[in-house]
């Protein structure tokens, strides 16, 4: 229990340092980029632009801005107002977008794990059969095809040829299905390959052979003795997979017109919305850090040989 607590505290410390570094780098980059958040086709008189800058504290010396903004986040959790989405604060933007991105990611990951693990187990158990070859070939394709191509094909198939799902939008389970599948399929393909490799390795272990020799039913052996070992690489892959699902949704959000966080990310950067961009970068950093920590924890739990450090 003690080492668990120590581990969490250490991780928290690292996260703070990483966040600070990310904040600093994005602060510098945002200010170094050409163009201003207030540039518009209809040019603004300098006095008015100056007032707008003052409103967002962009007229202070850079170092002052750096501290003020950081202090706002630390003391009040306030990421300030979005410069371009004038009616919203960055906190509100995240509060509206995060649940959408999160539920999409949850569906995609659960789908990917169920499909990937089942396919991996089946093809390992029936190694060398037509089913195995077919599934692994599909998995290779699934990894190779980017998800926006997948999305176009899926729309063509399941929206127009067989009208099962709506074309786009957010708000019902049916609307989540297609984007979640498109987002999850490449991950599922990767998981399937990892599971299969892990299964094959575990199947050749001696304790497995012993279990078979004892006369245990095949199903019991696979579920109790083979699978836990085989899933270790899958668990460690879940960290990067979460990252992939969260960032991979940027494109899908556009294709399926989903009101998630991803589109704000790109939009904020191209529109020089400094506050929103910083808020987004920090949010993603926290998300990825937390997910990786959970994965490391899970890894230690499943495999007693792993030490938390």
């Amino acid at each position, binding site marked *: *229990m003690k080492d*668990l607590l120590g581990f969490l505290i250490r991780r928290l410390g690292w996260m703070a340092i990483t966040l600070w570094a990310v904040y600093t780098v994005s602060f510098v980059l945002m200010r170094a*980029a*050409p*163009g*201003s958040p207030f*540039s*518009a*086709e*209809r*040019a*603004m008189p*300098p*006095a008015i*632009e*100056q*007032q*707008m*800058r*003052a409103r967002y504290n962009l*007229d202070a010396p850079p170092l002052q801005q750096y501290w003020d903004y950081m202090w706002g986040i630390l003391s009040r959790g306030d990421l300030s107002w979005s410069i*371009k*989405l*004038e*009616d*919203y604060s960055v906190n509100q*933007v995240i509060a*509206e*977008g995060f649940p959408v991105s999160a*539920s999409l990611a*949850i*569906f995609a990951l*659960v789908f990917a794990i169920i499909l990937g693990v089942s396919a991996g187990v089946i093809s390992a158990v029936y190694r060398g059969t037509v089913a195995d070859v077919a599934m692994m070939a599909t998995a290779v394709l699934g990894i190779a095809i980017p998800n926006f191509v997948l999305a176009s094909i899926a*729309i063509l198939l399941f*929206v*127009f040829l067989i009208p099962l799902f*709506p*074309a*786009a*939008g*957010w*708000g*019902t*389970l049916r609307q*989540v299905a297609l984007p979640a599948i498109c987002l999850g399929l490449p991950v599922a393909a990767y998981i399937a390959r990892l599971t299969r490799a892990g299964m094959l390795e575990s199947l050749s272990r001696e304790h497995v052979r012993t279990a078979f020799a004892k006369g245990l039913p095949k199903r019991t052996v696979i579920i109790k003795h083979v699978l836990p070992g085989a899933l270790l690489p899958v668990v460690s892959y879940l960290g990067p997979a979460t990252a992939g699902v969260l960032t991979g949704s940027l494109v899908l959000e*556009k*294709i*399926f*017109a*989903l*009101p998630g966080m991803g*589109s704000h990310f790109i939009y904020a950067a*191209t*529109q*020089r919305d400094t506050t929103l961009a910083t808020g987004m970068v920090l949010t993603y950093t926290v998300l990825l850090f937390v997910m990786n920590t959970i994965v490391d*924890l*899970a890894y230690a*739990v*499943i495999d*007693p040989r792993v030490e938390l450090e």
Partner: protein
Amino acid sequence: MPLELRRAFLILAAIVVMVSLIWASRFDEMPPAEFSFQNGTDPKTLDPHRATGQPESRILFNIFTGLLEELPEGDPDPETGVQPMTPQPGIAESYEVSPDNMTYTFQLRDDVTWSDGVPITSADFVWSWTRMLHPETACEYNFQLFGVQNAEAYATGEVKPGDKVEVELWDRPGETIDSEPAPQTFPRGTIVHGTLKALDKPPKPNVPEDATKEEKSKATADWQSEWLYTVDLARRDGDEILWDDVTKTVTYTKNLQTPLAKEDTQRAHNVLVAFDQLGGVEAPDPTTLIVHLRDPLPYFPYLTAYYPLFPVPRHCIEEHGKPMWTRPENIVTCGPYKIGLRKLRDRVRLVKDERWYDADTVEIESIDALSIESQNTALNMYETGELDWVTDPPVTLIEELKKREDYHAAPYLSVYYYELNTKRPPLDDVRVRKALSMAINREQIVREVTKAGQQPAFALVPPGIAGYTPAQGNRGSLEEAKRLLTEAGYPGGRGFPKFTILYNTSESHRAIAEVIQQQWQNNLNIKADLQNMEWGSFLDKRQQQKYDISRAAWNADYPDPNTFLDLFLSKSPQNNTAWKNPRYDELLSQAASESDKVKRMELLREAEAIWADELPAIPIYYYVGLNIIKPNVSGLLPTPQDTHPFQTIRLEPTP
């Protein structure tokens, strides 16, 4: 790690997955709206004084109403299908114009209220226009009111001794005398009135030549904050200000640290020309609004029907402040629709407002403005019946879509052109500019690249403005182009310096630039580079005039040639070409003060002819508005400015 803990962790993990799955599959399903359309990017704001783009305007036109409303009048043009729109009674049930076109008297309906039931009076307009013009509102469209007396001086903050001014003291809610300025401009601090006696300025700071734009504007703003205003305060008698009855003389400054400050100098936000007290707009009684113009603008009625001049709810803004007043739970509106729901990046739902004065004529109960940026996604949703109106169909499919019954293409007042930096040789030579323009085959561009029926452009003002015949422009010929280039010293394109065409990243802009690059190469033997930039950097380059040739476009802000022509005034902030022509400037200012409509249009046409002859920019084509509309929808016709009042839309039941 002990075994029990491990087991507990596994169970916990399973529970977490289950709970998150259940959480993720919970949706507040809402019934679909009766009518839904593609609104492009998410609206930035619902504040009429802060909005600029089309997604915002589609909503604002329908949740607020102006003095007048632009509504269809007469039959669509038989050739183009464009429905003429004219300003018709809105909140004002009628208006009168004085014979010299300088005074408008609006008679307001006596039964109009805000969506919360508070009556709308003429004082609301005075307040709204003051807010719109106020420098700290930073309304990009404030120039639309500059035709009203004192409006321009108020908005730009220009004052000179002798002006009758208002002084806003440093006591806005939450402010102390040495605090930072309060972020809320309204409600304002105490306003006192008087006559400006003297304006003292400290010496202008020396800003190094190579300072950035930001440093320069900061230095100017800092300097201005140190100005010292000496004001003879006027006595107030009820609502009336007795300007000649001086009670005392006080000095004001924004920055008390200024070296000019005296012992009793007071701190004030702004010293501005007293716009609302000098008769530019008057509200003699709650239902009468009198507007005195500086210039006899014939298009003033159109401006009152455009959203920046719409009234905004003072009570709501002063209670919630900016930007909180635009939250769906706070916003108070005055249009046929009100905001039912607003989800970022998803939709704005408009719900019919039963309190609106003409609610009986509004047929559709609920409308969804969906934030869909992707052209293909919108078309997909239209095809599967989730959308009724596509406002931005995929350009790549135009040829297919053209054949369909529900595809509507019609010209609107918008022009696509290439700005030329006339400071940079050889583009400073008008012969070169002409040669470049003549060597472009515009027919090829509209036929093979844009494909949607755009019209080749040879001058600046698009056709379709009532009473105006656009200048012809000079089509020229290839031979003439070659001759002009030779005259300019580049026979056969020899010795012509390499230059760059700048455009903002977009498939269609690139395609057009490539064709023009090719045509110049083939026709004149001139080499051009292409450079694309994303929007922010692109605007920066253009406005700092660090470009050779740049793609540009302009939509009419009001249906009058002036909206295009004043872009190229020598003092216009939009003029990125460095082109200056005193005769052109003079013609436009003559036109502004000309009250005879026919003569005015003549002057404008003469100015356009000068433009088309000097070519500070190369016009390429006039846009067409493209819409795909379900066949059961009527009352949604192409209009000159691509605006569409939703109260005229009718739905026939689908079989």
